[in-house]
């Protein structure tokens, strides 16, 4: 079940450092939203605040509202663990569990939460998730080998398989293709297009073509200077952003003009 996310007046801090300032945005269900912007402008920070992964960092905090289907995720009665069960995440750097086999890595979401499942169902789920991440053919003969023995790109796809295996409502992906070859990248993009029938997807990317190819809406983050907070400069349908953006800064960034 895909869900809609409304963010209003979100300020994100690391200690006393304001990293991202007053973000207002609505993320539509069953769609892909892309976030673009220069390095260090707070894309990852914003993404992590959507499933309350931000507060895992000591001193990090958030002010403002993130509402998913009418419920404030930062409400005092909301358990961050429940939020993360509904909003999955793929990280910028692949991070498979080194102690677990490929199979166990994919099943980790269920195993670590001690959910009981029949072996055959679990086998099905693992195969489906690995196929979904376009990894099945490469690893089907060595499911019991450690996940850390895979190449970087394979590890990243393993992490995607792990994230979709728990069937979240929303999937956050932080530059999921930055370590992948063009073929796997295309596979992941196809996967995203397929997944958006069921999930809401938010993806951070430095690849303009990718944003243009897969996303319905695009948000552009920018910094006004070093030490300044990042801001969401523009949020519009992808076509509009890439043809006639409202803001000059967006146009400059997309066409590669800086400073």
């Amino acid at each position, binding site marked *: 079940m895909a869900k809609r996310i409304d963010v209003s007046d979100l300020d994100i801090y690391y200690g006393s450092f304001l990293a991202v300032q007053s973000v207002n945005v609505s993320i539509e269900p069953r769609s892909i939203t892309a976030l673009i912007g220069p390095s260090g402008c707070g894309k990852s920070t914003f993404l992590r605040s959507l499933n309350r992964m931000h507060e895992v960092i000591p001193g990090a905090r958030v002010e403002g509202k993130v509402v998913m289907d009418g419920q404030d995720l930062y409400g005092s009665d909301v358990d961050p*663990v429940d939020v*993360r069960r509904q909003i999955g995440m793929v990280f910028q750097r692949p*991070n498979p*569990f080194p*102690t677990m086999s490929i199979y166990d890595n994919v099943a*980790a979401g269920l195993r670590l939460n001690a959910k009981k499942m029949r072996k055959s169902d679990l086998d099905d789920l693992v195969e489906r998730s690995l196929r979904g991440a376009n990894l099945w053919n490469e690893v089907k003969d*060595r499911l019991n080998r450690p996940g*850390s023995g895979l190449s970087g790109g394979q590890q990243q796809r393993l992490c995607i398989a*792990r994230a979709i295996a728990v069937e979240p409502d929303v999937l956050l992906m932080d530059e999921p293709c930055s370590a992948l070859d063009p073929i796997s990248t295309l596979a992941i993009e196809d996967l995203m297009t397929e997944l958006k029938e069921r999930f809401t997807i938010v993806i951070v990317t430095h690849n303009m073509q990718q944003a243009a190819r897969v996303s319905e809406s695009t948000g552009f983050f920018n910094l006004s200077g070093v030490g300044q907070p990042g801001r969401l400069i523009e949020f519009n349908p992808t076509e509009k952003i890439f043809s006639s953006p409202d803001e000059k800064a967006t146009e400059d960034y997309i066409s590669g003009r800086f400073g």
Partner: protein
Amino acid sequence: MSTDLRPDAVAATPARNPALRSRRQLPRFAPTGLFGLGVLLGAGLSAATGFSLTLTVVYGVVLGTLVLYVVARRVEGGRKAFDRLVTCLVTCAFGIAMVPLVSLVWTVLENGVRRLDGEFFNSSMLGIVGEGGGAYHAIAGTLIITLLTALISVPIGLLAAIYLVEYGTGRLKRAITFLVDVMTGIPSIVAGLFAFALFALFSGPSIRLGIMGAVALSVLMIPVVVRSSEEVLKLVPNELREASYALGVPKWRTILRVVLPTSIAGLGTAVTLAIARVVGETAPLLVTVGLVNGTNLDPFDGRMSTLPVFAFYQLTQPGVPPEPAIDRAWTAALLLIILVMALNVVARLISRFFAPKTGR
């Protein structure tokens, strides 16, 4: 610009880079040979002044280094010669560091094997005067007390380390870290007196129990466990914790199912080395556990024997004739060394077998 990769193109460039011109070098066996020559000279010198082994070694090493340095300087130039000089110095330092170790192990072996027989393992000192007797009671006591110590220290130490790494923040964390550091430096006799005072509060000053020894040793062992497991837990990358949180796994389960399995090899090593650290402690056991001649396997009832205390008393109160007792002391010492070495081997095996496996 085109790059010509044919081999003859390289061979056809006779002009060599002047900065890389080859220097003259000593042949491979020359350094050892020259050093040997110096040592021979040294031996000659010491023989001339009345032979003594120590002087021979000292003269030999100094002269050997000198000869090698001077020759290398003539042949190879300053930088190489300095390199050889430093190599000699570092090797000497290593040799000096090895001298006490080797001589200690050798002495203990030499004196200890004399009584390393079946009787030593099978009998206690009950009714033994002079020849014979054994340390069965002390071996069993050491094992029991060490096991109890580990049972007390490992849970406390591990949990404290987990608190420090995963939960602790601010003042409390800093305070605990500081106290643990202070505890690491506590003299072992103080730990013994602490346990003694604690139990004497309840049962009067004449009490001696195995469990008192375990408590005293725990005071010494807990900080070691905390410090080393803390370091090991810190090595677990944060990304793994985040990966687990992002799957909706609660923190305690993340620690239990991700952090601990990832660091199990290091934790096993840390615990084993901490045990090795306390297994040979003497002073705290002297004041808390005492010694008996017979076998007592119940740590909650009366005095027990332990290998270090056994060795201490055999050596300080040998009786007449003293030789059999002194032999027993050496054998007890040898057993302790073997025990510590075995623990170190176990630690290595643990870290080998439990380390996260990579590769295909």
